[in-house]
């Protein structure tokens, strides 16, 4: 069984939000509010327990490569559909104390809703701020990578609904190659700031939902150098155990070298 992945390409996205609609409908994700944010056409603002695909709208005073907008000032309007990154080394998975969060045979990270007891530790260990607790439910939810559809041999709902194939679904290695070719092609065509967001050089070890973006990852609220928080365990436990040893020695000394009351 090969590992599957998402390649989401900002240069193909038209901001139609079909992915958001398809995901919500297929997965029966509840309504999480009709809020007019005033942030371009983005009214979902971020991924959350009831938003598993989030389309971003970036308005930038930057010329869009060789293409010129019909305006005197340089301007480009970028769209990108954000999703759970399904990290190779996932902070949420490592942190989950109930074993609810597991790695599927497709390489995705999956929260088993019948086991999750809502402890909330995964929420603070996700370096991308993806997973969250659903307030009226108590459990955490996130993109399932359409595990049910993949097991039936289908493509995820968002990929199916995307009219421009900005969201591509397929074999992990093939999509990584495709992303590489796409970025080379874009740069060849004059989009000098085209790059791939896939933090393979970090402790996260790469993600299974990666992106072709224009410009800096920060503009999309992608952390430029994410770390899986298990990297802090060694230092923290060392500190804990050394401090504990010293504390115990101090407590013993306090009783050993002082007379009784």
């Amino acid at each position, binding site marked *: 069984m090969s590992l599957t992945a998402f390649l989401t390409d900002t240069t193909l996205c038209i901001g139609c939000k079909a992915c958001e609609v398809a995901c919500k409908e297929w997965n029966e994700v509840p309504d999480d509010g009709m809020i007019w944010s005033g942030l371009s056409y983005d009214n979902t603002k971020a991924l959350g327990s009831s938003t598993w695909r989030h389309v971003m709208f970036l308005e930038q005073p930057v010329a869009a490569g060789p293409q010129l907008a019909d305006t005197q000032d340089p301007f480009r309007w970028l769209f990108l559909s954000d999703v759970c990154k399904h990290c190779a080394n996932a902070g949420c998975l490592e942190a989950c104390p109930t074993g609810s969060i597991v790695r599927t045979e497709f390489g995705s990270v999956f929260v088993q809703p019948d086991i999750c007891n809502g402890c909330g530790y995964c*929420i603070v260990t996700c370096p991308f701020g993806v997973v*969250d607790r659903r307030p009226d439910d108590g459990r955490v939810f996130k993109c399932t990578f359409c595990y049910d559809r993949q097991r039936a041999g289908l493509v995820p709902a968002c990929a199916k609904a*995307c009219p421009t194939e900005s969201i591509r679904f397929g074999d992990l290695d093939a999509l990584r190659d495709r992303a590489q070719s796409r970025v080379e092609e874009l740069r060849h065509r004059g989009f000098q700031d085209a790059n791939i967001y896939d933090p393979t050089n970090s402790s996260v070890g790469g993600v299974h939902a990666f992106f072709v973006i224009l410009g800096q990852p920060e503009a999309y609220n992608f952390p430029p150098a994410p770390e899986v928080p298990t990297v802090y365990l060694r230092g923290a436990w060392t500190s804990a155990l050394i401090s504990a040893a010293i504390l115990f020695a101090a407590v013993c000394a306090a009783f050993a070298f002082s007379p009784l009351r």
Partner: protein
Amino acid sequence: MAQPGNMDSTRHPKATEERLDEIRREAGASAEPALGAGATSHTERAAKTDAAASYYNLPVLKEPTWTWEVSLYFFLGGVAGVSSSIALAAQLFHGDPALIRIALWMALAGAAICPVLLISDLGRPSRFLNMLRVFKIQSAMSVGAWTLVAFSGCAFLAVLANELLLRGFSSPIFVAMRWTGEISAAATGLILASYTGVLVGATAIPVWSENHTLLPTHFLTSGLGSAAGILELFGFFTPATQILGLLSAGIETFIGGSIEIRNRAVDAPLRHGKSGWFMRLAGTLEGPVALILRVAWGSSPAGRYAAAVCFIVGALASRFAWIWAGRVSARDPHTLFHLQTGKSN
């Protein structure tokens, strides 16, 4: 046609392949190319946007969902965990049997209350036993859940054996039980009192992860001073509790001072804003105030009471302050980006 807003059906009528194709057709038909759409009207707002700063200053991370039960648990777990070490040390060095008894009961009381607090904070409290489905050493919360269970058993054994011995049921078996209970409760108790610092430090929240070596030490020291302080509130004005109180307040003063002096941007929630002032208040109470009270007024019970109360209040407040600071830190995308790109602030 399916009716919009019809959420009552058990199987949503829209979850079909045909519907996904329909969405795709609708999207492809009505969407317009991005370039040239509304460019002129948005240029002013766009000009104000720094192209690389962040996505509309929205948070990158999610805030912790933990509420007051978790903060209180951090405090009580620290007290209970260190109490068992105090009991063992007192036992080893022929301390006051009354003090040993109270310290053991403090450990057991904490072991009884802590699970209740944790369970009530869960999103699905009825599923609390799922914490014991697996043991994952890479999850500080898993280690903590199992440590709490083990500690409870050990503390119970120690208290039971101690009470039997105190009531005259002298038997080498009970003595062995008490030693076993005390030693194992001390060992598991030290983990209980420090793992919470590991748990908070090994996260993606910048103010927590950037203090991941400090937090376990800080939580342990807080627990030590609180346990010693509570013993003093029970009337045990021994030299030992004074020494431990001085040590704890001194270390907390040092820790608080070092956070102030380092002046790191990531520590802003600990020093600025409402969360910062609350943290400073807590740190001052369990640091310099408790220290000065012990040094200047420690010879009288009133001074020891005052120092103990100040430390305990400060330690308890400090737990709430660290969670609050975590929420503030999670909301700030710029500090996160600066940290990760190595830019100075």
